[in-house]
């Protein structure tokens, strides 16, 4: 299965057409909506997913997050999340 391979740094992930990502005021969180279901994302998952619009590479996405949260060394965590997100079909690359 292709999901097993780790996501490459130049890949540009975007939210899969099977899901809709939106901010929910009542839940104060980003959610993924799909037929008769919902995944509530935690804060960091939301920050990553909202940047998955096909315009940024993984490297660019990480750089943006590191700048936004004034931190370093997020690459491994983000890549791990994106691998999981791809296995769940939340994102396409």
């Amino acid at each position, binding site marked *: 299965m292709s999901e097993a391979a780790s996501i490459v740094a130049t890949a540009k992930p975007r939210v899969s057409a099977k899901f809709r990502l939106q901010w929910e005021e*009542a839940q104060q969180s980003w959610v993924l909506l799909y*037929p*008769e279901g919902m995944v509530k994302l935690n804060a960091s998952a939301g920050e990553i997913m909202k940047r998955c619009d096909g315009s940024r590479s993984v490297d660019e996405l990480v750089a943006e997050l590191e700048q936004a949260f004034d931190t370093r060394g997020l690459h491994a965590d983000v890549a791990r999340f994106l691998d999981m997100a791809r296995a769940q079909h939340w994102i396409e690359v």
Partner: protein
Amino acid sequence: MNAPAQAPATSIGPPLWLLAEITYRCPLHCAFCYNPTDLAATTEELGTEDWLRVLREARAAGSVQCAFSGGEPLARDDLEVLVAEARRLGFYTNLLTSGVGLTEARAAALKEAGLDHIQLSFQDSTRELNDFLSHTRTFDLKQKVAAMIKANGWPMVMNCVIHRLNIDYIENIIDMAVELGAEYLELANSQYYSWALLNRDQLLPSREQIERAERITNERRQRYGDRIRIFFVVPDYYETRPKKCMNGWGSVFLTVTPDGTALPCHTAKMLPGLSFPNVGDMGVREIWYDSEGFNRFRGDDWMQEPCRSCPEKEKDRGGCRCQAFMLAGDAAAADPVCDKSSAHHVVLEAVDRAQRADSHALREAPLVFRGPAESKRLIAEAREAARS
């Protein structure tokens, strides 16, 4: 646990799920329908403006999934208007339909309105299934509707209520769902409420039937792999612990019936001594957080033994309040599916009959098909029984 007796309002989450039962009108006559058996008593339906207001209020209260159901929701010609507003408000919009009444023009209008998903159901237990299995009228209809679903880019989700009379054809049902291009197939065993309860002895499968169906379903999962995701739901009568009904009373689900009655689940209206508000008299937020009906079974103050001291009480919340009322005569009792319930024998007896029932018994008791005429007859019968 030392939780406060009355849960503070802030601990109640929003009504994430809105089930909009926009009509009881339906071209089908399913013997397992969960609509109330006295549905003929509902003569007035909420108008378009009322529904639009309900959608806005529910969305403002935090609802995010909206299912348009019924009856057959396509029976209302303002469905497209309601879907458009729901989508505009940010709902994920689901249409639960048999496909009867879905034309190319309506499918296009629903797509234009922003409908996110159609769940196509096989509804009728005998006529329709037979048609379907023999590739006749119903199969042609489903094939046509499935093609429309694909053409409009909707995910293809099929649902078939499983019971004693169709469970032995489960391989055909799965294969045909694959043939129609379904990506998801829900094989949900009938639950015994309303019309299905009237027909329980005819509909509850035997243990042997269920085991065979599960085995076949697993084989088909292997065979089809990623082509289709199949969900198989066992009837809770065969469990020893109850389901966490509606994920807990007043926890995520809000049903609004065709006449505007707001309920914590689609069958809760049957519960005696409880009043449920109407969206015409009360706003959705107030209904959800403040009404007596929605607060009745929140928290655990209402629980009796064996639930009260049960270590699993948060896991299943005592099961289903309607099932407790129907089978144990007390909506606050443990769901008799639980083997700790003093009324568990009622479930065991029904299960026992299911192992023995034969075609002779089925002939003795014909299926009661859902419909306005039958409903009127049942209402009159109940009135007669109350009088004597």
